[in-house]
């Protein structure tokens, strides 16, 4: 029972580089989310998806893109990385939309230097 799996766990990027954070869940959840957590702060929603082929912006979407081609996978792409994107990124999924329990991955710590 893997739950929500994120890769990589750590990554250092140079300014202007791009990368994709991978997220997969094995619980057959329709709803998936990407959050970022800045030091000493709570989490903020970047993007979410209510099912394969459907995505929508959250509170802080600028500089990111997502896709949802399957129920299991919800990758987050950073284009032209900036120091302001230094953060810990969490992927989560839920059986129902938001009002139920969210299952989180263990996070990706990203530094942009």
């Amino acid at each position, binding site marked *: 029972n893997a739950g929500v799996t994120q890769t990589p766990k750590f990554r250092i990027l140079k300014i202007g580089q791009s990368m994709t954070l991978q997220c997969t869940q094995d619980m057959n959840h329709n*709803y998936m*989310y990407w*959050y970022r957590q800045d030091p*000493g*702060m*709570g*989490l*903020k*929603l970047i993007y*979410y998806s*209510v099912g394969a082929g459907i995505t*929508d912006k*959250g*509170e802080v979407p600028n500089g990111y893109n997502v896709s949802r081609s399957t129920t299991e996978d919800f990758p987050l792409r950073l284009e032209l990385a900036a120091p302001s994107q230094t953060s*810990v990124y*969490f992927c*989560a999924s839920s059986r*129902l*939309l*938001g*009002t*139920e*329990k*969210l299952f*989180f*991955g*263990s*996070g990706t710590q990203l530094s942009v230097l």
Partner: protein
Amino acid sequence: AQTVTQSQPEMSVQEAETVTLSCTYDTSESDYYLFWYKQPPSRQMILVIRQEAYKQQNATENRFSVNFQKAAKSFSLKISDSQLGDAAMYFCAYTQGNAGNMLTFGGGTRLMVKP
């Protein structure tokens, strides 16, 4: 916009004692949900307890209970018989009932448990 405030950046408690973590929120909605999530050093967020705003009864989960004061917009977490494994960051979170796509999180409270 909804806001969630945790006024205690750090708290400490003696093992086996009781501690209460504070959370206040601001909303004009009547249908919403409140959560407490625990983030241990492993970083993975774990749901501790969930409260529906329409329920007057305070939610409980084993040693964890809440004091939900809807009029005061207060949602505190009580941990009884504290254990070393309770040491973690605790986040209070809010979501609207009819558009529960986004959790709004507080800034967190770091709980230390002294043996």
